[in-house]
């Protein structure tokens, strides 16, 4: 049988998974953007809280090998996350919320569960607790933002 005449059977295989964390928990600082993390959910940090718009904020303590931090997420996503889940966080941002550093999904943030239980982690250091130096940096940062905004308001 002629090999050339046989019709081919072409399979478009699913694209390989190319996820790479961009950083680790210990390196997180306030107001970082576009970060990707691979973490495990240690515990539910607090009961879900309602915002004025009626959204539920779910708060978790997450960790990787380098440390732990608080992760805030809204509504359904929060309901679907369970303790011990291994999560991929893509396009997330860091923010100081209630005087604690937290991670939350950004504009195009994606939270994906990729496994459970089997991941090494360290609870310490708890990055959520802001150090004094970080606090001053934060104040400086806010001052900068304010000083940038004010002239713009005057212009308008």
């Amino acid at each position, binding site marked *: 049988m002629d*090999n050339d005449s046989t019709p*081919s*059977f072409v*399979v478009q295989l699913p694209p390989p998974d190319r996820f790479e964390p961009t950083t680790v928990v210990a390196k997180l600082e306030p107001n970082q953007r576009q970060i990707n993390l691979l973490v495990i959910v240690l515990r539910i940090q607090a009961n879900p809280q309602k915002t004025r718009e009626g959204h539920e904020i779910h708060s978790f303590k997450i960790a990787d090998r380098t440390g732990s931090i608080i992760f805030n*997420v809204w509504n359904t996503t929060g309901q679907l996350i369970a*303790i011990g889940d291994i999560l991929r966080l893509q396009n997330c941002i860091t923010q100081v919320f209630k005087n604690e550093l937290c991670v939350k999904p950004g504009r195009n943030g994606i939270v994906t*569960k990729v496994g459970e*239980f089997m991941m090494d*982690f360290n609870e*310490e250091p708890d990055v959520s607790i802001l150090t004094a130096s970080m606090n001053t940096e934060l104040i400086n940062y806010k001052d900068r933002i304010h000083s940038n905004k004010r002239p713009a308001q005057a212009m308008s």
Partner: protein
Amino acid sequence: MATNNIKLISPDSKLLQYTQIELKDPTDAYLESCFAAIQQNRYTIESNTLVQIGQTNKKSKDHISHALLYGILTDINNKAKCFQDLIALNGTNLSSIIGTLETLIMKNWRRIYDNVRQQLIWFLRETLAANIDGIDRLYYVFLRQINPHEQCLDLCETIIELLLIHPLFLKTYPEMKLLTIYTFLSIFPIYIRRKSQQQQRQIDFIINLTRENIHCLGRDGIRVLIQLGHVREIDAFLKHLSLNTSNDYLPKILSLETEPKYLALPLSFDLERHLQFLLDNCRINSQEKYYFEWFQSQYLNFKQHPDSIYLCSHIIRYVCVVCRNQLNPQKITRWTFISWLLTQLYNYQQTLHQTLISASQTAMNAAAFLSSSSPQLIQINEQIIQCRLAIYYDWFLFDINNLQQMTNEFDTQLNSTIVGYHLLTISYHQAKQMLLFLLYTSENLIVSLKSFLQQNIARLFMELFQRIPILNSQQLLQMFTHDRDTYQRLLTTFFSLPMSTTAISPDNDDIMIINDDISPNAAMPATDDEVPSDIMIMSSNTAATPRFSDDEDDDDDYENRLSSHKSLDQDYDDDDDVLMISDETKTSTDIYNTNIIRSNFPFDRFRSYINEHIQQLSLSYSASTNRNKSSLLIQICKQIASTLSDKRLLTFQTQAIDPAGPITSYAMIKFEKTSEKFQSRLLTTFDEQTIVNGLLCLWLLRDSFPNRLLPSLRISQTNKTNSMLENNFREIPQQKLKRSIKQLSICVLFRLIKDDIPNQDVYIKLIQSMYFFQPEIAYIFLYYLSIDIDDVKMAADIFEKFAKDIIKLSTDHRKTAMPPAKIPTYDQDFIDFILEILTHCEQDDTETFLYLFSYMYRLYSKKFLNNFKLIRLLLHTINQFELEQFMLDILKHRLQLFNSHKLYSIVDQTLLFSQIEQEDFWKLLGAHDFVQNDYEQLFTNIIEHLLNQSKSVIGEQRLAKSIHYTTYRNTIALANVYDILKTKIPTYGLICCLFAHELTKHFSEKLCLLWHEKHHDIFWRYLERILQKWIQRENDQTKQKIDYKIGTIKMANENGLKFILQHLQILLENNSIHIQENKIDQDDLHDQLTIDENLMNIPLSVSTIKSLIDCIHKNEQLYMENKTFIDRLENGNSVVPPPLPTAPAAATTTTTTSASIKRRKLDNNKS
């Protein structure tokens, strides 16, 4: 915050059900893409071209096969066609397809859609029918889904149906037959309860299989059968096993180990993976709380899934047998995990109990309700028994005679038994239950094999005691001291093998103490040959808990105590620097620059100094939570002593650096422990090995330090501060004291000093080195000596030995004293050392301090008398009640704090004290006999000092410094002196002393008047003699002024006359009338009634008055000042008192002391 709302799209799939945040499974994605390729390549699933392409193109064959598989799973209409095509394409070799299916099912069983599951089972059935190669792999994957976690009871039925239809399958794959049996036996407790009525056929089928093949399953086959003992058929089968089979059939099954693959069967794939991960990776103290919580919420959620309790025994068995020991001490151990799991079960049992009781409170008879209607409780009780059996199953069957030591088999057996051994150390409560379980079960599990099982356990205990010496038989037996019957049974069944059967290494002869007092006849008879015919196998119901549950109540009390003990420990934990050597400096030279964290001793760092055996022993000592560890400690200490005694005691390795700062004695312990100076100095006295071993001992004994030493008299210790006030150590019986040191593990070391005389020096060296890191050890040592060594001299000697090097080390580096100061003598240093010890003790526990304080005075009765520093420490500490107790001791001659030697210097120093402390001091002093008896000599000195106070240089300095001094000066002291003297008879010396000083209103005036009133005659007679002497001196021109002395008292040369006049004035003027009135009746010699009021009666001789007046007239100024009084004196009547009954020389002193005799001699010479 608006950015926080994520758009959620769950992956699209026909095979698996995803939540919105889950990632698509790669196998799913691959199968889907293969199937999608059919359409993309413009084919249909029905067409035959696919097969053709697959046959010609090997690359495409795999993809097409998978596409067909996807078709089978998702397309119900075309599944038959797809399957045909698949067979046509691959023949009977479907290995790659089966491989894919394996991965898919293993990872995603829970997420597979129901219809897809049906298709999968259809596929399994078809492949069975078609006799496809490697179908057993697929079958195995399905089999594994049947377990107490996933349950899949429907799958059970389906598979049994399948096996009934295709009986050839199990004949072709005999291994699958065994796996099937084991799987079904382990799911049956759940399956039968749910479906037994309808499914008798299936049950019969499995039981038939079991009958034929049980001998291949090994011992765990019997274990799972026992669990089903309540099923009629199985009960019959077990009876048949024991009755109708040949004698060694059952023992043979039991001796066969069950392979790990069977033990893994009742665990789902996920569970097995997670369990392995947990035991391999979980770090102790940081991760366990999370991993345990996740594990529990996923697999052991008893409330939501009550059937998950059936999982526990299988998990335990798997962990015991299949998992290996971690070598890493940071990682969690298997026994910790099992202990946690058991605790979860107990907790659940308790919750059930509680809910049932509270639910039945409305019911009439709670007890009846409990017993009749709680199947859940029965279940959990059964399962707890099953779990214990799972832990100790290998213990019963550990036949050391059939196992070749050093073989793999022996190792595996030991591996599975170690868990149970360590569990005995984790908690008292558990250990007790486990031992009872071992005892009862060994008697009842298989009656005919009773002695065989018991002997196995006894041998195993022996083996483990030697290999892993955490425990010894005494510790285990001690739990049953209140229950003699059980104690005896345990002793004879488990802990009484004859010595000859095992070779005990000489190091361990202490471990098996219990063997010493057993007759060799108590050994168990050999049982291999004598298996009786009536083998009874205990069914699970007869093994159920009631017989154990009785014991639980007894232990509550103990647990409470244990928990309170723990909380004490936690308090201690807060105080982190007790045993910590801070790691601030990190120089390479000093090896002690290390952080002795309590939970972990840095053996690696000190490897060259600590020998292996000690390391091993101390590791097991610290790992064990059992309370009685003293025999282990004795071993450690003996080992240390033997290693240390081999070598020279002193090695001078480093020359000490010259002292820089001012160093008082005992400054050593105040050094930073990491400083080079400290270490180099330490090395001048101790060699490194001693220091390291000392540190090791400290680390081992770290719990000994925080506790109070003295036992409390009160039963309840709830209010310690109160009990302290009322608790008097003198009332504590000696027995109780002795018991208190027995509880103290550190006393093991001390007792060795007493008992192991040849090595005494080594132990003392060890304690000395420990002292520099932990000064408290000194007073604990002292406390021990006070109780355990009755011979005071021996105790003093031992303590002297202990103190000597410490003092030497501390004083060697003292700066040479500046000229006015003297270098303290050894005795002074010794007192300083004791003071240091007692100060430490005082800070820790006042009661113990007081106890030791009085002990010290008994121990060194001579050395410590009149020691101001010690007295000051006592006075700072003591309260009123304790003071009274001390006074009582002194009065009863049990204690002496002072003697007369230079007592005035102490009195002098007490003037700085606060009022209360001064009062206390005088009370203590007044209680001494010598104060009351030899008061003359003593108080002449004291009064001299007190009244001269303002003139001394030191006094002036103090005047400036001390607020007490300026406020009270010496008034308190004088008031106390007055209190003592007011009951005494006046003496020559005292009167002399009074007249030599200025008149003070509160002291000399009061005292003179009192004596004048009460001891009129004696007083005036002495006074006359004094005045005569004084006048004689005054008139003697040849003597220098400085030598004016009457007795030992210097009379003031300038103001002498003035002082005498002051005294006479108050005596004669103010009280003349009063005295006359008193004297009237007694004075028969002289009729004084007619005397003019203006005339004074002077009880002095005429000549004395005359010479006195002459003296006064010489001093014009004085005469002018006191003109009226002197005139009256001049004109006064001389009324000589009657002569003293005794001779004047003897009358000068009330008692004959050597001091007074000296003084009299001096007087005679001068006169």
